[in-house]
């Protein structure tokens, strides 16, 4: 009798396991659809994409979204370019944190920024990686919500948003 019961239980596991996986899959896909920044089902993990940043698509923010956060003053903008480029012109209210001096300037630049404050890093040019590197660094340093505005300075100027 004992062995009969055992076989019976395993037989139930045979349909329960696919059913559990399907329930989890349905929950995962529907919650991903409801999410504001849903993850593409097939991601671009090619070498080129991973060179740009370890999680390029996840970090990127659109100019519309960045402009909205700017108007609501809900985010801090961080200029990853050199101090000289920053002096020539930058997004209004942006802080300067040049990537090449990040070790020296990190604490003074981020002193007044609470860790849960959204930060948007930017530099100039489609292929500029400074803002990505800075964003990953800031995230590693404990800032929870860091985004990259790709080609930020050019796009910002072209959209006629406020500059300093």
């Amino acid at each position, binding site marked *: 009798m004992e062995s009969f019961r055992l076989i*019976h239980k395993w037989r139930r596991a045979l349909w*329960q*396991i696919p*059913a*559990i*996986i399907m329930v*989890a899959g349905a929950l995962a896909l529907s919650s991903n659809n409801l999410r504001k920044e849903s*993850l*593409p089902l*097939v991601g671009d993990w090619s070498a080129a994409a991973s060179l740009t940043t370890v999680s390029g698509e996840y970090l990127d923010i659109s100019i519309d979204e960045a402009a909205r956060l700017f108007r609501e003053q809900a985010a801090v903008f961080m200029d990853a370019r050199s101090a000289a480029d920053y002096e020539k012109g930058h997004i209004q209210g942006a802080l300067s944190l040049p990537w090449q001096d990040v070790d020296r300037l990190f604490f003074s630049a981020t002193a007044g920024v609470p860790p849960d404050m959204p930060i948007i890093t930017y530099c100039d040019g489609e292929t500029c990686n400074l803002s990505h590197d800075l964003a990953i660094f800031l995230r590693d340093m404990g800032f929870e919500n860091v985004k990259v505005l790709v080609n930020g300075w050019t796009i910002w100027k072209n959209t006629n948003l406020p500059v300093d």
Partner: protein
Amino acid sequence: MKAYGIRMKRIEVSENKRTWLSQTNLLPACRLFLGGIFIYASLDKIFKPGLFAEVVYNYQILPDVLVNLMALVLPWLELVLGLMLVAGFWLPGAVLLSTLLLLIFSGSLIFNMVRGININCGCFSTEPSTDPITWWTVMRDASFLIPAFYLLLANRTEKTAGE
């Protein structure tokens, strides 16, 4: 008469002890422990699928096209399994599948330890650099197999409703 009463009490105590060890408490305790571990492990990943996809990618085990799908489904699978273990629902399937998952997790950790890939465990948190894999991580994850195997083996003789 008095001595008889004491004797009876002693028998009751030893009987309680026996049931405590064999069935009534240890099985649910293992289910709750394992279920709790799975639920706790799932939450951070569910809220940060993008970061968890990085973790999955860094393991360098799955082909690229499956990375995001795994990053989306695996945390929910952990949550569903955890809830089922806690609730005692569909136990044969839930116990077997969580044991398989734990074997896969431990195997993936050992695989990457042996080939020397320096990655983040991503077991309980998706944050980079919080939990780099070490042999200690392997031991920790493998130790969860103890309650899992116990449930798997003890489940054979557990009486379930309707049988």
